[in-house]
């Protein structure tokens, strides 16, 4: 397995481990959107340059190696897939649990980056995540620019959030607050709800 794929597999398994705390089942499309949004915001939140390749086509994304990693997880009996659902198995939890016992390992550092993101993103339901996903600027602008392949390292969203942060003077407001605010901003706009909670006249 090449390095890029193994890094993505690591991210994907840590996501499933974090998600399993509240539910053993996750919608596979929502899960893919979580991974997409994680990588697209990672340059802003964690300041890391992990890159994944994403094909944008026909109103959807294809994360390179995503399907193949899912198949690997099924083969290893870490998960089961059923229609649109992934069911997280105990074998995955035991496996990741054992790896995370090494408190000085690289994996625990990555888990500490993923855990807060998962806590935040799962406070938005599947439909909200879908809306946020198709409103995300990198995805939204790709067809306008005639682009079909994007790299998460070139995230338009990360640039936008960085620009936003540079305007905010209150140092108590951090990257996660800004990400949450952006998602709420998208949803308020989508549902025509003003900041004061009233419906907005178009």
């Amino acid at each position, binding site marked *: 397995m090449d390095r890029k794929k193994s890094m993505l597999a690591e991210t994907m398994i840590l996501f499933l481990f974090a*998600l*399993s*705390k*509240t539910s053993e089942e996750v*919608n596979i*499309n*929502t899960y893919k959107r979580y991974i997409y949004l994680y990588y697209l915001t990672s340059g802003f939140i964690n300041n890391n340059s992990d890159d994944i390749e994403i094909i944008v086509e*026909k*109103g*959807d994304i294809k994360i390179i190696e995503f399907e193949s990693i899912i198949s690997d997880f099924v083969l290893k009996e870490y998960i089961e897939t059923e229609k*649109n659902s992934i069911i997280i198995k105990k074998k995955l939890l035991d496996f990741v649990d054992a790896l995370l016992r090494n408190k000085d390992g690289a994996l625990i550092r990555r888990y*500490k980056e993923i*855990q*807060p993101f*998962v*806590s*935040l993103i*799962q*406070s*938005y*339901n*599947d*439909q*909200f995540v*879908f*809306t946020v996903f*198709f*409103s995300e*600027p990198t995805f*939204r602008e790709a067809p306008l620019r005639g682009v079909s392949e994007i790299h998460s390292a070139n995230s338009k969203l990360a640039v*936008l959030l960085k*620009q*936003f942060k540079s*305007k*905010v003077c209150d140092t*108590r*407001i*951090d990257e*996660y*607050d*800004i*990400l*949450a*605010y*952006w*998602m*709420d*901003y*998208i*949803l*308020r*706009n*989508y*549902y*025509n*709800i003003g*900041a004061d*909670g009233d419906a*907005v006249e*178009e």
Partner: protein
Amino acid sequence: MQLRNEDFLNSYPEIGNFQAEYSILSCLFKDCEGMFFLFEIKDLDAIRNQYGNVVKYIKQYYKSHEIRAFILSVDERIDYITVVKSSGLTTQIEQLYNIAMERSKKNSSFVLVCAGTSNVLFHEGIFDECYKNVYSDKQRFLQAETLKYNIDDLEKVFELFHVERKYIDCDYIVNGKVSDSITEQKLRNHLMDYLKEKTNMMVIPELCTSNKEDEESVDISVINKNKEVSIIEVKYFVKRGLFENPDKQAYSFARFTDGYKQLNKYCLHLNQENYYLHSAFLYMFYAHSETVGEIVSRARERFNTFLRQSECNDYFKYNYKNTILDNMLDQKVSI
């Protein structure tokens, strides 16, 4: 509403502290729905790292016959104490508010009250208004979502589009006639904007239906959160005498057959591209002197003829749902 990055950037004065933590806390109420408990946390940031563990712990140690305060300590350990014994659901909400208020003041902490329909946060003895606003926003999103239509309701949305247009001016109807400048693109865009507003789906113009075949793209496609796709081919025809210019005319009933042929091709190719094709519609705008019943008969005749042709494939037969007839000159009647 058009989403613009500049508007987002200019909205920065509206952001408040703890936006992320409030969002996460608001989910605790949903994940532990129906439970009566308090949740106390001194360092609110810690909820980001411990949310999953907190939910798991509460579900493990919750008791319906007493009220427990679950506590996430500064060193991120989770524990509980019993604050009201042997009362459970009969406990008065006011009593829980008082306990939460006192504890949050005494410990300089945040205390969340989750009890039935109550979801209230206290911070250092004071009701936290900012949390209330974040939680209210989430409730408004959920409420607004219930008003959006999904992929199974498309025919209802088409009907609403037609009815609403009777009462709202549109630029392709002028003084009871069809505008000479009408184009298929204009009609498509109007319908597409309406679908964006009324449905909870991603609406895409000109979806290319095949990577291999060189062909036209379907006019409108809508995709839901489970990647189910509905495709809509938009066409129109106008009889001579119904345009502003009395000598102008556009197309004929043959547009029905053109539409079915195109949908037939798109259905085949989308299935080959592994789409979850949910349904296919022909949306026909028209202006004609014949009655609706006569137009329906003509459309049905062409549809049945097409079904008998060898080029008609099974995917079209499975996925075709309906032909929508939209009489552009069906306008509000004032007597």
